[in-house]
């Protein structure tokens, strides 16, 4: 196999440029053999090396006193008090999910779970951020069905609740859906595991499933543009085995309770190769692996295949010497493979042997530090100016179309396919602003939300980047959580195009500013570039996953109206910001103008105020305003509470602006009248804008008596029926 001659074509097939190949030759001081070429190609792929994004990622804020581990490990770690840590990360599985939605999405969930339990955490919550093409695109229904079933199929079986997410439909995802999965886990702060290998002579151990020829070159696939014939790249799809994953979680956690593990790393993209290189590189040591000892599922596997296989449900560990037998007994109890496949060396090289011969020998440094880094040229998106967004005469229809349209309709059809209650700690289920999961056995809880508004990011990447971070912060705040840190999944088009790179840089700058202003650092993340089909890119989609903590989970707010006769207050002020809104897109059918601007100081001020009300037990009903504006939020609160509302708007803004504007930093709360006056007074003292909008009650949502009046029945049916009827329509 290694006598295959390295030709320029072969180099190109491996996704390497001529210049990159030259770089490999000079790093190695010789030509690579076939196995080595394969290894360089995955290690230097966009997916593993972050060659287009690294330069900019370095500028993101990653520190805070509560950050235990920022980016660079398998997942980020934050201190949540009492000696406990939350460990979390989000990751994309876009390309595989487009090719095979069920398995693509399922293995995406499996991969992100491993990133989290690798660090010693028990996974306690899964989230999923999904973007599909237009509803009437011929592929959409099939993709939605498969992705949702795959996420559920994996998460339900493993027994980790899938507690929330987000789902958008837009034409820019027609040929390139996004499937971003996030896992949050819990660990004790003194029991966190890292991937840096240490100790020359220590055994390198392989555990989990056997290696097959699955997904060879998945990492390079995730680093190239899609063309029509990508659908032929089928054998790269992997099949997930959630049952084995469940066993692997239990076995790893059982071993982690001992002191046998020095370092541990899951085998993700580029499998055995990237995990061993990463462990060696972090530890500044060499690895010698005997590939004959790798547990194999298929016959006659070559070193090339074993090194590049992306078979799922596998982990690599470095153990303390002498602990092999004890560790092996644990894995055998869980009926998993366990094999010592090598040891740590002081050579600084990754040395591979097979059949008694050395089949690869590469300096670890050259695989990691020498990987190319590009400062690709970029061009910022031009300002689109202020949009002039029309009013419609039939307000009622507009509201029904919006609330009962693809981007606001209830996602119940999705979350009812996910076990969102297993583990017995889900105290806020999907359907609210943030999911809330109790920290098992304590009063504390984690609040989790994923958000991004790609329309805004496309219109103005900087503002969109800010808004994505701010929206997760706001959603966590709206349930009463203190937002602590975020993870992200940066989904963009082809970075070799200046305007795409401009979107990337702009979004990152916005994210960074928002993180700094909100004390809300980035602790982990993932970049997915080349999300393009035939040269047309997706909208920039930097999905943000935020995590916050609640000290007393009995003080929690939910969105549903609880009693008739309560006063509805709006915290924050509505401005005429209709550009790039959902109203403009779905009702008017245009996408122009600048998006709403996030005033980060105001965001913080209003949010801190809301949170203090919830923490004090002053309010238990709260909803932030986002897509669809005021009327969408009121509708949500009324539908979920089955209680109507009547509100009165003053005439500072045209009605359609007051109802549909997506001005940021706003919340709605509902409280008893006497409490409301106290809150108004408190807000005025603090210089916070507050408006008394009206009261809950009745069986309709009405505005200024007659301008708008929609019965709860109509609203509910529009909101609840869109998804099921869309999915049940025959293709």
């Amino acid at each position, binding site marked *: 196999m290694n006598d295959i001659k390295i030709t320029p074509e072969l180099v190109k097939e491996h996704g390497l440029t001529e210049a990159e190949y030259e770089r490999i030759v000079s790093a190695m001081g010789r030509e690579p053999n076939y196995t080595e070429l394969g290894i360089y190609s995955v290690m230097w792929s966009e997916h593993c090396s972050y060659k287009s994004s690294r330069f900019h990622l370095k500028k993101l804020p990653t520190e805070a006193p509560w950050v235990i581990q920022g980016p660079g490990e398998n997942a980020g770690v934050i201190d949540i008090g009492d000696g406990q840590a939350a460990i979390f990360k989000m990751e994309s599985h876009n390309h595989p999910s487009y090719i095979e939605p069920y398995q693509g999405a399922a293995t995406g969930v499996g991969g992100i779970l491993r990133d989290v339990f690798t660090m010693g955490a028990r996974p306690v919550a899964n989230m999923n951020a999904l973007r599909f093409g237009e509803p009437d695109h011929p592929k959409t229904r099939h993709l939605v069905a498969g992705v949702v079933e795959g996420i559920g199929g994996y998460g*339900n079986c*493993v027994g980790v609740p899938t507690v929330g997410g987000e789902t958008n439909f837009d034409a820019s995802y027609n040929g390139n859906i996004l499937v971003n999965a996030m896992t949050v886990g819990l660990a004790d702060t003194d029991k966190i595991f890292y991937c840096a290998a240490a100790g020359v002579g220590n055994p390198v151990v392989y555990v989990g499933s056997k290696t097959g020829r699955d997904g060879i070159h998945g990492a390079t696939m995730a680093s190239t543009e899609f063309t029509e014939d990508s659908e032929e790249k089928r054998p790269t799809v992997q099949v997930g085995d*959630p049952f084995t994953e469940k066993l692997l979680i239990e076995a790893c956690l059982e071993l982690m309770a001992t002191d046998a593990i020095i370092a541990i790393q899951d085998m993700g993209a580029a499998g055995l190769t990237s995990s061993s290189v990463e462990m060696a590189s972090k530890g500044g040591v060499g690895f010698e692996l005997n590939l004959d000892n790798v547990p194999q599922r298929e016959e006659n596997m070559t070193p090339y295949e074993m090194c590049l296989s992306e078979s799922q449900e596998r982990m690599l560990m470095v153990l303390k010497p002498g602990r092999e037998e004890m560790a092996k007994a644990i894995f055998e109890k869980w009926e998993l493979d366990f094999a010592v496949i090598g040891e740590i060396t002081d050579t600084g090289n990754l040395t591979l042997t097979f059949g008694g011969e050395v089949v690869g020998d590469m300096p670890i440094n050259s695989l990691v530090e020498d990987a190319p880094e590009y400062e690709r040229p970029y061009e910022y998106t031009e300002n689109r100016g202020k949009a002039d967004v029309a009013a419609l005469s039939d307000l009622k229809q507009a509201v029904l179309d919006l609330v009962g349209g693809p981007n606001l309709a209830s996602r119940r059809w999705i979350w009812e396919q996910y076990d969102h209650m297993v583990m*017995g700690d889900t105290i806020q289920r999907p359907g609210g602003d943030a999911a809330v999961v109790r920290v098992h056995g304590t009063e504390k809880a984690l609040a989790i939300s994923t958000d991004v508004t790609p329309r805004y990011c496309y219109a103005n990447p900087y503002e969109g980047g800010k808004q994505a971070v701010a929206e997760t912060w706001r959603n966590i705040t709206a349930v009463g959580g203190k937002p602590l840190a975020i993870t992200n999944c940066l989904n963009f088009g082809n970075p070799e195009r200046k305007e795409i790179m401009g979107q990337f840089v702009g979004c990152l700058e916005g994210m960074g500013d928002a993180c700094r202003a909100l004390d809300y650092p980035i602790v982990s993340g993932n970049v997915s570039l080349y999300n393009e089909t035939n040269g047309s890119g997706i909208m920039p989609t930097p999905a943000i996953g935020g995590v916050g903590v609640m000290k007393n989970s009995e003080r929690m707010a939910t969105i549903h109206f609880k009693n008739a006769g309560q006063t509805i207050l709006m915290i924050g002020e509505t401005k005429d910001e209709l550009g790039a809104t959902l109203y403009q897109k779905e009702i008017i059918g245009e996408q122009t103008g600048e998006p709403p601007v996030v005033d980060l100081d105001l965001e913080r001020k209003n949010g801190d105020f809301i949170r203090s009300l919830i923490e004090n037990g002053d309010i238990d009903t709260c909803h932030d305003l986002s897509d669809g504006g005021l009327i969408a939020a009121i509708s949500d609160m009324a539908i979920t509470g089955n209680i109507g509302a009547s509100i009165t708007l003053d005439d500072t803004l045209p009605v359609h602006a007051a109802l549909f504007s997506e001005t940021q930093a706003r919340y709605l709360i509902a409280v008893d009248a006497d409490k409301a006056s106290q809150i108004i007074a408190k807000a005025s003292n603090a210089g916070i804008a507050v408006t008394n909008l009206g009261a809950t009650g009745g069986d309709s949502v009405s505005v200024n008596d007659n301008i708008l009046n929609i019965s709860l029945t109509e609203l509910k049916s529009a909101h609840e029926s869109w998804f099921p009827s869309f999915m049940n329509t025959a293709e």
Partner: protein
Amino acid sequence: MKSAVIVFPGSNCDRDMAVALEKITGVKPTMVWHGESDFEKVDFIALPGGFSYGDYLRCGAMSARSTVMKEVIKRAEAGVPVFGVCNGFQVLTETGLLPGALMRNAALKFVCKDITLKVENADSMFTSEYSQGQAITIPVAHHDGNYFADDETLNRISGEGQIAFSYSEDINGSQQQIAGVLNGKGNVLGMMPHPERMIEPALGGSDGRALFTSVMNALG
């Protein structure tokens, strides 16, 4: 009340069951691994929900043949109360301790939501704290909860009061909307809904508690 929770590879509601049992009975249950051939004497045996063996081949099929189940069957026959939830129910039908079989949901989708159940038999040791016909809210979370039995069996179990709970709406295609079934002697109950998930207001309600307190009362 001393209880045991049986753990199969892939069980994932074993902890939830143990937490509920401890909260309600005040005694920490013993966790029993599927490979054990014997375990300490207990008053109550619970088979938890989850995906034992990944639900591969047929839900509950592989667990039903595990070593520990031989002992569980023996004890059930000797009168020890045995309670299977979700996957536990599937295991019980696969062992033959309960009649019928659980097939793929008619809509072929996993379904996770709160559902209203009707208490069809409030006379059993598992249900005495409910009233006959009471409507209770308990969540379901399953892919294979579509209860099937042949007509003769159905007639028998409905005639003998062996139907413990039924769904108030058709959620999975179950015959007669059956949600939970007792054995002839009344000491084995299997049900698809998860009462152990409804034991405190923070989780959405407490309607599941009475099931456990019923057993406590029955055992004295």
